[in-house]
């Protein structure tokens, strides 16, 4: 059990007072942003990233990932008490969570949500612990063509499997990739797409873009909604917690199935949203008592929460092992890693053992501490919602500005942030997805470099992407996924044709 020994080593990196204190701060801040209207995982991490710039990488990533866990926990609070999903993936939690709160069973619903989130994350972290090192050491054999093929696979699966309109995903991705090319070309040193602006020489900073896209635009989107809300306050007593925990083992099939769905969709860029809906629907389908779903059934809280958190956590697996984030938030965390000069990917496991295992250990610890924290402090955080949004909005704007400016000490970045804020607002309203945009922004440079390196290696022969079994199968899989909707449609038609022909005979 090599992983086990390394994990113990990870805990030893982690167990200092400073890091434990940062963890608590991160969790509290995370729950805070998770509870606040219009803010959630990616926004919270994007806005709070600048706080960590002056820390050492391990403390910083521990704090950031704790913000993320906190935000995931916090999202459930608003879904259950106020019927307002803090995140798209908490929508399914409201189906049964809010009715439970209406029936005076808010404490039960919250306990169920937190505990199942914890279980989902735990399964995903176990997966990361035992799978990530293997994948990383396998990926050490990758050369530029293999890496480009993996990037291509990521992009293509977004287009082929995403729920958004295909051309909109392509627009979002192409734009993101283009913007990463602005500035000095890393291979030839030539300037491109700068149009003579000195400020563009440095290129467009990923974090500035993300702060605008997720922070500023989210404020505008939240402002245009009706912000009045009413909900239930809840206090969780130990008795309720124990009661729910005693009931829990009865639903082990649901929990296990939801964890599996979450892990799978988290690793592939399917995402937590799909995972939570899918596992809710499956729980409903396999239940003997389908009618009771949507009317306050505890299983209806277990299923989506487990899946959402399993998926949110396992999205970090490809990020750590391959340097490819499985979700928007993972992409932002990845951007954070790069700020500290860490190059995410297989080499991380070799070169920065303390960092990687510290992070993995912090996932265990963060989730345990987070669970205890939310269970004990729910009333406090629910009260946060009493703070009017008109006080919170300008504070978030200020935090965004500080973050955007701090990255490169440039006023230009503040304007860029505003521009991205408007872009994010418009894109979200007309249904151009932001996740592929974020992903393209963070992966763009490396995708281009690996493409050009493979081209240099092969002397410009595209066949390099089919030069051996490994790279060939990844490239082919990428193309299949890209055209998946067409292929699936074709197969369906073919199937019908065959049936029709058989039918009359």
């Amino acid at each position: 059990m090599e992983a086990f020994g390394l994990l113990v080593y990870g805990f030893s990196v982690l167990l200092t007072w400073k890091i434990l204190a940062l963890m608590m701060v991160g969790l509290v801040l995370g729950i805070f942003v998770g509870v606040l209207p219009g803010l959630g995982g990616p926004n919270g991490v994007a806005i709070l990233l600048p706080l960590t710039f002056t820390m050492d990488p391990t403390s910083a990533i521990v704090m950031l990932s704790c913000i993320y866990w906190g935000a995931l926990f916090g999202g459930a609070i608003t879904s259950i008490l106020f019927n307002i999903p803090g995140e798209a993936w908490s929508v399914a939690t409201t189906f049964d969570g809010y009715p439970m709160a209406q029936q005076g069973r808010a404490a039960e619903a919250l306990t169920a949500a937190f505990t199942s989130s914890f279980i989902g994350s735990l399964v995903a972290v176990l997966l990361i612990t035992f799978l990530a090192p293997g994948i990383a050491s396998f990926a050490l054999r990758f050369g530029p063509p293999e890496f480009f093929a993996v990037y291509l696979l990521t992009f293509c699966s977004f287009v082929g499997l995403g729920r958004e309109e295909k051309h909109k995903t392509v627009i979002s991705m192409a734009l993101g990739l283009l913007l990463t090319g602005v500035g000095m070309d890393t291979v030839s040193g030539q300037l491109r797409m700068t149009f003579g602006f000195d400020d563009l020489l440095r290129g467009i900073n990923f974090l500035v873009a993300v702060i605008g896209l997720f922070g500023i635009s989210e404020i505008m989107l939240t402002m245009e909604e009706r912000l009045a809300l009413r909900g239930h306050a809840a206090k969780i007593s130990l008795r309720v917690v124990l009661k729910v925990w005693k009931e829990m083992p009865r639903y082990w099939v649901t929990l296990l199935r939801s964890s599996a769905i979450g892990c799978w969709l988290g690793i592939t860029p399917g995402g937590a949203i799909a995972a939570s809906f899918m596992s809710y629907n499956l729980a409903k389908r396999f239940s003997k008592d389908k009618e009771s779903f949507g009317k306050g059934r505890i299983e209806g809280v277990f299923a989506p929460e487990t899946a959402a958190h399993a998926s949110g956590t396992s999205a970090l697996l490809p990020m750590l092992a391959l340097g490819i984030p499985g979700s928007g938030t993972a992409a932002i965390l990845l951007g954070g890693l790069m700020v500290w000069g860490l190059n995410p990917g297989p080499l991380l496991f070799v070169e920065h053992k303390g960092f990687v295992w510290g992070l993995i250990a912090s996932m265990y610890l963060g989730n345990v501490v987070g669970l205890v924290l939310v269970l004990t402090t729910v009333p406090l955080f629910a009260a946060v919602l009493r703070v009017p949004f008109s006080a919170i909005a300008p504070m978030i704007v200020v935090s965004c500005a500080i973050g955007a400016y701090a990255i490169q000490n440039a006023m230009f970045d503040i304007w860029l942030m505003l521009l991205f804020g408007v872009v994010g607002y418009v894109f979200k309203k007309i249904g151009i997805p932001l996740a592929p945009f974020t992903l393209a922004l963070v992966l763009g440079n490396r995708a281009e470099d690996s493409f050009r390196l493979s081209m240099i290696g092969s002397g410009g022969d595209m066949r390099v992407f089919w030069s051996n079994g490994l790279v060939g199968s990844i490239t082919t899989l990428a193309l299949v996924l890209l055209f998946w909707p067409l292929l699936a449609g074709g197969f369906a038609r073919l199937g019908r044709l065959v049936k029709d022909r058989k039918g009359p005979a």
Partner: protein
Amino acid sequence: MPKTETEIVVEDPTAPASDSPAVTTNRTADVVVSVLLLAFAALLAYDNWRTGLGWDSTGPQAGYFPFYLSVILAGACLWGIAKEFLARKAAAETFVTRDQLRRVLQVFVPTLLFCFLMQWLGLYVASFLLIAGFMVFVGRLAVWKSLLTAFLFSLIMFVTFEIAFDVIMPKGPLESLFGR
């Protein structure tokens, strides 16, 4: 069963009315954005063509990769525009209503002002003005509460970033008065 259920109620006095007239539809916004992006793609394609999109001794030139991306972007935009014009859907969704636009501008314009002011007054003074102004004029909250919140928040930010973490922000006359 917990019996401590109390309701949390938050009011929103300036909420946008649900029957506010639409400023524009999603379809119009969609087409406008596509056209803008198409122009942007054309501009970038031209620039990359100028940079060089062929091959030289070091492999693909600097403009090669981005040039084809701008072609893909342009293609996707054209596809989107064509789709909008071919689809004859009568009922188009509202992009933004007049009330909603008013609210969005209520946050966007102050933010813009804040960014301008930051250059002369420094970030911390500008943030005090933004928070206090926003709470008083947009949120219609009590003046003393707003001033106090704004002051405390700016102070905490100053202590956290300027003193504890040594992150340098734009500063104005007030900070130089304190010798920072």
